[in-house]
């Protein structure tokens, strides 16, 4: 639940999603849901020469289950806050 809320705070930021087939897509995060499915707008692929498959599309829906990494700018993340929140969540789960 926490990571879902975290992703919601990244809405309208530019992120790069690396898929489990090595395709990397950069775009503006438009929405995220409980499965961590991601909607990206204004997309571009990392290596368009090798991956021309996404030429005719501008926005896409990525299934959460195929995401390997999400890369984001460090300035968009309050690491201390996130650290505290994850620890609190673990502590609450143990109760």
């Amino acid at each position, binding site marked *: 639940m926490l990571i879902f809320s975290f992703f919601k705070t990244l809405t309208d930021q530019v992120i790069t999603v690396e*898929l*489990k*087939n*090595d*395709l990397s897509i950069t775009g503006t995060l438009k929405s995220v849901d409980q499965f961590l*499915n991601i*909607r990206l707008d204004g*997309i571009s692929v990392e290596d368009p020469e*090798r*991956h*021309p*498959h*996404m*030429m*005719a*599309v*501008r*926005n*896409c*829906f*990525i*299934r959460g289950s*195929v995401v390997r990494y999400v890369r984001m700018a460090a300035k968009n993340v309050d690491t201390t806050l996130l650290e505290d929140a994850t620890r609190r969540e673990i502590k609450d789960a143990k109760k």
Partner: protein
Amino acid sequence: MEGYVDHLVQVILQDGRIIVGKLKGYDIRTNLILADCVEREYSMEQGVEMVPLGLYMIKGDNVAIVAEVDEAKDATINYSEIRAEPLAEIHH
């Protein structure tokens, strides 16, 4: 994904296949109903091959990406001249 209904979408499957069709319906598990599907087969030997498939129901487990096709832009692309390796399959 509701904005995609009745639009032309490009679906990338877990095995790397690419299917383009009109999205008729979907559910929470990403199960899709696509009308007038065409598979786009990329290869290095020849241009993109368009294989007509008809009406498809795709089980959500097999879906990796659903992307809205910009039909105006799509019409300007000469797919018979595009050569590329097919997309890799998803490795969990």
